[in-house]
């Protein structure tokens, strides 16, 4: 009971925040930015035809999307590593007696 009581309002806040995000982005549907997605291109074709079961990769090729996930997440890790390194260098420079 205590668990439900403690987590009820945080859950409500999370759900309300999610709806705020959705309603904030919904008006984008009627902008020229949205129209850019609708006129031709690969996305428009995929949306029209649907992904379908035929688009599913099988065998060894089924692992390829995992490489995409790993690569994108790896770029994030790399950004952080570079950012942290730069921050450390700046801090070292700031705290050095010469500076």
């Amino acid at each position, binding site marked *: 009971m205590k668990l439900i009581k403690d*987590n009820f309002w*945080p*859950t409500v806040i*999370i759900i309300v*925040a*999610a709806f705020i*995000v*959705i309603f904030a*982005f919904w008006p*984008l*549907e009627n902008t020229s930015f*949205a*129209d850019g*997605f*609708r006129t031709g*291109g690969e*996305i*428009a074709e*995929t*949306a*029209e035809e*649907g*992904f*379908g*079961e035929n*688009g*599913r*990769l099988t065998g060894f090729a*089924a*692992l*390829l*999307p*995992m490489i*995409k*996930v790993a690569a*994108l*997440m*790896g*770029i*994030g*890790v*790399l*950004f*952080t*590593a570079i950012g*942290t390194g730069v*921050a450390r260098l700046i801090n070292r420079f700031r705290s050095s007696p010469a500076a």
Partner: protein
Amino acid sequence: MAAIATEKPKKKRSLTQIKLYVDIFLLIGFILVNMPQSTGIPVHEWISFLFILPLILHILLDWQWVVSVTKRMFGRLPGEVRVNHILDLVIFVMMVLALFTGTIISEAALPAMGINITIDPFWQGMHDLTANLTMLLIGIHLAMHWSWIKSAFQRYVFKRNK
């Protein structure tokens, strides 16, 4: 009395341990959700709906941190904590958008519930964009919490106490 004596004492799990298990489950779910070409669209869509539960649980387990940092956001706060909080907020927005756009371009889950929607290429494009951005941001999120992940793994998975 004898029954009490033979009863095995229940091992209470620490909050860190629970957080670690939820996070492992969440990461596996996240990777699976982002492989629709391998899992197929129906599995992708149903896993995405299920993914909402551990995602909310992940936020709830750190709710005290979220509340305390939000309160001090415009006051004195270490730079790393501030960056972390902003990053978490952006990840939340991206995940909500990815889930929402994924729902309104649903090809299997919603039709199975009797709801048929015409797919708008704009929402399809936004779904791809937000999903890719989320993967990038999750990489940053993992790297920023690397020391916690490492120590929790050493303690609870490899059972090594420092």
